[in-house]
């Protein structure tokens, strides 16, 4: 067994099998588990996927939204048990893999066309 195969087999039980395909430009709703005072509840974070980084079990997505006029970004591990599920609400039409340029844009300029 190769070294890579061994490493993959160690991480494999931690992987989720029912993940949707998330691409940069998609609008994604993440159901994040929040623990407060011994209780657990679901908090929804909805935003634009501005970056998807691969890496097996470390695959992650950066979601950006504007909350009360302030830009908020969260990087979530796709396979993390702390995220109940991901929903892709809208596919965006984009021409690059990392949409960091959107950080410098507000309002109408920060729109992304829907993919048809």
């Amino acid at each position, binding site marked *: 067994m190769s070294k890579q195969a*061994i490493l993959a*087999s160690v*991480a494999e039980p931690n992987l989720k099998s029912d993940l949707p395909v998330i691409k940069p430009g998609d609008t994604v709703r993440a159901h994040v588990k929040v623990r407060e005072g011994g209780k657990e509840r679901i908090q929804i974070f909805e935003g634009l996927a501005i970056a998807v980084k691969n890496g097996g*079990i470390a695959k992650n997505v950066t979601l950006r939204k504007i909350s009360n006029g302030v830009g908020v970004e969260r990087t979530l591990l796709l396979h*993390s*048990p*702390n995220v109940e599920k991901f929903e892709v609400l809208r596919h965006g039409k984009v021409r690059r893999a990392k949409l960091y340029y959107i950080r410098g844009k507000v309002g109408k300029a920060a729109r992304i066309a829907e993919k048809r």
Partner: protein
Amino acid sequence: MLSGILGKKVGMTHVFTEEGKNIPVTVIQAGPVYVTQIKTVETDGYNAIQVGYEEMSDKHLTFPKHGHLKKAGVTTNLRHMAEFRVDSTDGFELGQEIKVDIFGEGENVDLTAKSKGRGFAGGVKRHHFKGQHMTHGFMTHRRPNSSGATGPQRVFKGTKKPGHMGDAQITQTGSRIVGLDAERNLIWVSGSVPGAPDGLVRVTKAGK
């Protein structure tokens, strides 16, 4: 029960804990090891178990090693040998196979391995000297500069200097075993492990 085992570093990956924490782990292919010699107070002055690890071809098997292994009833050539001190040699027999199940999940272990060699390294890399500015007219950048005061007109012994770095035995204490697979002889410990992949790692119970 033996207090340690020999293994080979495989590489790093991540796993998630039940609380959802993402932890980096290093996977070690550990064992099985075979008992090749039992040392006792009567014969050797101390109690220890000598084990061999990693089967290899007989092509480079020397006659003395062949005799040593034959005495233990081990039929294959073994690449590495190591000794583990024990309080009593009861329960050990020659040729016995020892696997990773001597450890448990959540147990702390000490890891001994040979660090990656860095060759002749300068002071900045080897001792974290600050160096000089890269710009603003500085004509030196990474020199060690002063070796000491003019008072005692000599350099003290042990003064940090450039020199050979790495390729030395490192013992990392208190690494936690995150998981193990006795069937496939794998253990994975939290965090990093000294040395390069495929390097020999000696895994011992913490403090032993």
